[in-house]
């Protein structure tokens, strides 16, 4: 690269960094104060872009029309954020951690379908910014004028936020609440208004960030998910709640990206390696590196535990005789299903069982372990690929491939887990997500071995298992055994030690429990069992593709666990059954089925903040019963 090329790519990176920072700053603010992991933040960005497109079309493409359109959309999204906080999220602050995440995920689904309904399916490319349509010549190359404005805007917003947080009374209160929200509350700060204000400000920043992209990218329905991942990465790399950190992280990631593209192909030891392809995953590589080196991000501090809300959960009691009997009876009933039904019921039940195993394996580290993994699908998918590779490339018989496939996910969990358990809270979650994305990109890119984005086909069960009835029995037996084993482990000394590490790492350490080693082992066990689910999944479908370890699958498994209730034993099974059934039924009968799933989840969350199983437990709890 020539010097002028380097300069121009540096400027490209700066413009990208400003765009990223605007979204990420809002997310960071919201998380810092309310502890909400806001999945709908990308949706605010998307809505801002769509709204600005409509408003500018309405006001005309002149300078006044353009800028008032951008500003108004930002404000409108801010108001929408305040409304959502007041109507939905406010009811959930007392609920267990992560439940707000489920609510914002439901909002994401609703907003996705709302946008499709309101603006239609076509991409909408807005006008260029009036007065800034052209390019300036810098070092003999043309650079868009509008990008220069963006470059200036990033630091301007950073300083404005800095001023707001450091120099105003409201900012002081926000900082106080970020540091210790219970103490702030005890000193008479009205949390309700503070939370609403912060949420509205965050939404306003996201909406404005989206609206400002009008001259650079079309409004399209993919934006919400693609933006949210990037914004999370920036927030976590920068350090949660640190606005300056978010700015630095946005800069780091945008520049690394710009130079991966600028440098293009490089030759290492005679092998040509395309850095441009690396842009698929580069932000996650950066995040993994940063978190491994600095467990709380660039500018972050160890998170303070919010007091009060996170009451120590009573340990799960082993199921009572009645409950145990009911579970056995359920398995018995499932075994009888093929007598009355052959066709689709078995196929759907097979899928429910596989996802139940996935959800229980995730719950194993989330519940007793207290480790919230956002990348659990990686182990599901790697188990599936392990089995597929052993069958197709290794030439093993199907039975052996099915049994040995999960070893791949176990091995991955062993390697990734060692890094992950060094972290805690959201940092742990994001590092698992980073490793999942890295695994996904390897599977996606390694065409010769894994079939790349198309995946692998022809992964069918052996002849004697090929009927849907036979395969159903295999799945039922395997999943029941695996789930029973996981539950049994929860009540072993190992399970109790794991729980001790969750509730009080200090005390657990003091009595001689190696907390990290326990967590690492739990991580590997969970990975192994998720992989078993993945291998069963692969043979039930006959094919496998990178989607099986992508983020949406991880989110689905998280939703299943939370729907069922995280501090219950059997909750994940009910969550998996309900979620799979909902998707199947609603996608068949309703056009806007995603929105409807979102609404159902919202209703469930508001009605049963403890999850379904948690609700039943509270409703029917008697002494000695399954609590």
């Amino acid at each position: 690269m020539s010097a002028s090329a380097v300069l121009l790519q540096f400027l490209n990176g700066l413009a990208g960094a400003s765009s990223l920072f605007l979204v990420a700053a809002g997310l960071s603010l919201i998380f810092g104060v309310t502890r909400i992991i806001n999945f709908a933040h990308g949706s605010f960005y998307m809505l801002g872009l769509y709204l600005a497109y409509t408003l500018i079309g309405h006001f005309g493409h002149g300078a006044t029309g353009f800028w008032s359109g951008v500003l108004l959309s930002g404000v409108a999204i801010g108001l929408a954020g305040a409304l959502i906080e007041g109507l939905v999220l406010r009811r959930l602050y007392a609920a267990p951690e992560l439940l707000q995440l489920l609510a914002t995920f439901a909002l994401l689904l609703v907003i996705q379908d709302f946008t499709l309904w309101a603006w239609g399916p076509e991409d909408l490319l807005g006008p260029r910014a009036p007065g800034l349509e052209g390019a300036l010549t810098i070092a003999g190359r043309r650079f868009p004028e509008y990008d220069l404005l963006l470059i200036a805007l990033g630091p301007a917003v950073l300083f404005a936020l800095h001023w707001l947080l450091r120099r105003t009374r409201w900012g002081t209160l926000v900082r106080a609440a970020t540091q210790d929200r219970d103490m702030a509350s005890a000193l008479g700060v009205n949390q309700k208004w503070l939370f609403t204000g912060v949420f509205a400000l965050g939404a306003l920043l996201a909406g404005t960030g989206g609206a400002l992209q009008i001259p650079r990218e079309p409004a399209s329905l993919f934006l919400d998910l693609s933006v949210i991942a990037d914004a999370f990465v920036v927030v976590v790399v920068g350090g949660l709640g640190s606005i300056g950190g978010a700015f630095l992280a946005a800069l780091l990631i945008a520049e690394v990206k710009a130079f991966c593209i600028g440098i293009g192909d490089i030759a290492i030891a005679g092998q040509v390696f395309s850095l441009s392809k690396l842009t698929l995953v580069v932000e996650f590589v950066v995040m993994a590196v940063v978190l491994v080196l600095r467990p709380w991000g660039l500018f972050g501090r160890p998170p303070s535990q919010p007091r009060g809300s996170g009451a120590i959960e009573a340990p799960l009691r082993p199921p009572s005789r009645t409950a145990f009997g009911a579970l056995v009876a359920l398995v018995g009933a499932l075994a009888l299903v093929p007598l009355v039904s052959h066709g689709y019921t078995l196929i759907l039940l097979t899928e429910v069982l596989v996802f139940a195993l996935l959800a229980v394996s995730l719950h194993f580290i989330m519940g007793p372990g207290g480790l919230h993994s956002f990348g659990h699908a990686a182990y599901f998918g790697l188990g599936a690929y392990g089995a597929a590779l052993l069958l197709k490339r290794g030439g093993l018989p199907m039975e052996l491939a099915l049994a040995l496939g999960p070893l791949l996910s176990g091995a991955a969990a062993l390697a990734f887990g060692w890094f992950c358990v060094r972290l805690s809270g959201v940092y742990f979650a994001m590092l698992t997500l980073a490793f999942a994305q890295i695994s996904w990109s390897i599977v996606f890119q390694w065409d010769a071995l894994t079939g790349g984005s198309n995946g692998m086909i022809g992964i069918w069960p052996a002849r004697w298992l090929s009927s849907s009835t036979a395969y159903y029995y295999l799945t039922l037996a395997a999943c029941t055994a695996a789930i029973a084993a996981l539950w049994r482990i929860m009540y072993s000394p190992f399970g109790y030690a794991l729980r001790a590490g969750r509730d009080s790492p200090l005390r657990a350490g003091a009595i001689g429990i190696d907390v990290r080693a326990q967590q690492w082992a739990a991580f590997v066990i969970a990975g192994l069992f998720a992989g078993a689910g993945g291998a069963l999944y692969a043979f039930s479908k006959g094919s496998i593709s990178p989607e099986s370890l992508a983020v949406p699958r991880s989110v689905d498994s998280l939703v299943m666990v939370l729907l069922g209730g995280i501090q219950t034993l059997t909750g994940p099974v009910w969550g998996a059954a309900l979620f799979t059934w909902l998707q199947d039924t609603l996608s068949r009968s309703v056009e806007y089925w995603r929105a409807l799933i979102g609404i159902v989840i919202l209703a469930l969350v508001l009605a049963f903040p403890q999850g379904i199983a948690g609700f039943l437990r509270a409703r029917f709890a008697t002494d000695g019963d399954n609590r």
Partner: protein
Amino acid sequence: MKIPYTILATVFAAASASMPISGAAAQPIKVGELNSYKVFPAFLEPYKKGWQLALEEINASGGVDGRKLEVVSRDDGGDPGTAVRVAEELITRDRVSLLMGTFASNVGLAVANLANQRKTVFIAAEPLTDKIVWQDGNRYTFRLRPSTYMQVAMLVPEAAKLKKKRWAIVYPNYEYGQSATASFKQLMAQAQPGIEIVAEQAPPLGKIDAGAVVQALLDAKPDAIFSSLFAADLQKFVREGNIRGLFKGRAVFNLLGGEPEYLDPLKDETPGGWWVTGYPWDQIKTPEHTKFLNAYEKRWNDYPRVGSVVGYTTMYTVADALRKARSTDSDKLIAALEGLQVETPFGPIVYRAVDHQSTMGAYVGQLARKDGKGVMVNWHFANGADYLPSPAEAKLLRKH
């Protein structure tokens, strides 16, 4: 509530007596349709309107051998695993006679793989991957659209005519873009030996960093550019390229760039002179297209996109195959589909017996801006049959 059997039987008898054709012949033939309606709505809403129009026409003219067609349509969520479950449901619960649909390559391949296992005919409407008919082709799967390879082959003669030496390539980083790039390199090496690829950019699908990519291509100083970008990536690339002067004095080829789905959003950014494959729907004056256009505009009060033609033609393929086979049996349907000729808005096409690929073509032309909108000019129709490998070569590409 339990309804006495006698009442039910009476109602049923009365109902069937009132129908013109009694017994099995009056039963509709069920066709299973699945697609990623929520993931790719820009392409698939017109597609759905296309097959719905065809279905209404077919049934209005008496259906197939006196039996009406009934389409059971499902959303596959854009995920191969879900698509397989949905296809299983269509086969086992809805008892459809054959399957049609799918958009993305990975979903298409997964459903084709299932069709082969369940011995059910599957007409892949959209997927562009070459593998679905060649490397991974199977007996039960047929594909309508001209594949990535065919569309690249349609552009290559125009590219070779220009005698440009230094080429830059940009493609979305997944199967479609990768195989478009591979086919382009292979076909150009034959058509114009000695070309040089000076830059290759593979941005992630839907997440192009357009400024940096355009800058990198400028730095490589190519004479010409081959792109397989589409949708939002294409729009961002075009705007950045226009602002930064990437396209000045350079020939650009863009696969699919003239399809209304991807061309129309560009409006006054439409780059003039680009060579593209596409569909100039308002300029095609053949009788078969005019008939389709009028019917479509009358029914939907909207103009057709490529997806509309694909949906419309897939539905007619199904009806024609059922007519020719005079049966819903898979083996007879395959025999009927191999060599089946179908009349389409683009003229007649044939499903080749050797690789189950249809000879549907595409329009090749250049982009221009007219009244603030993008149009195709200078275009001609490229018949798919002329851009397919010979039957002998195709046989080698199919392993079995």
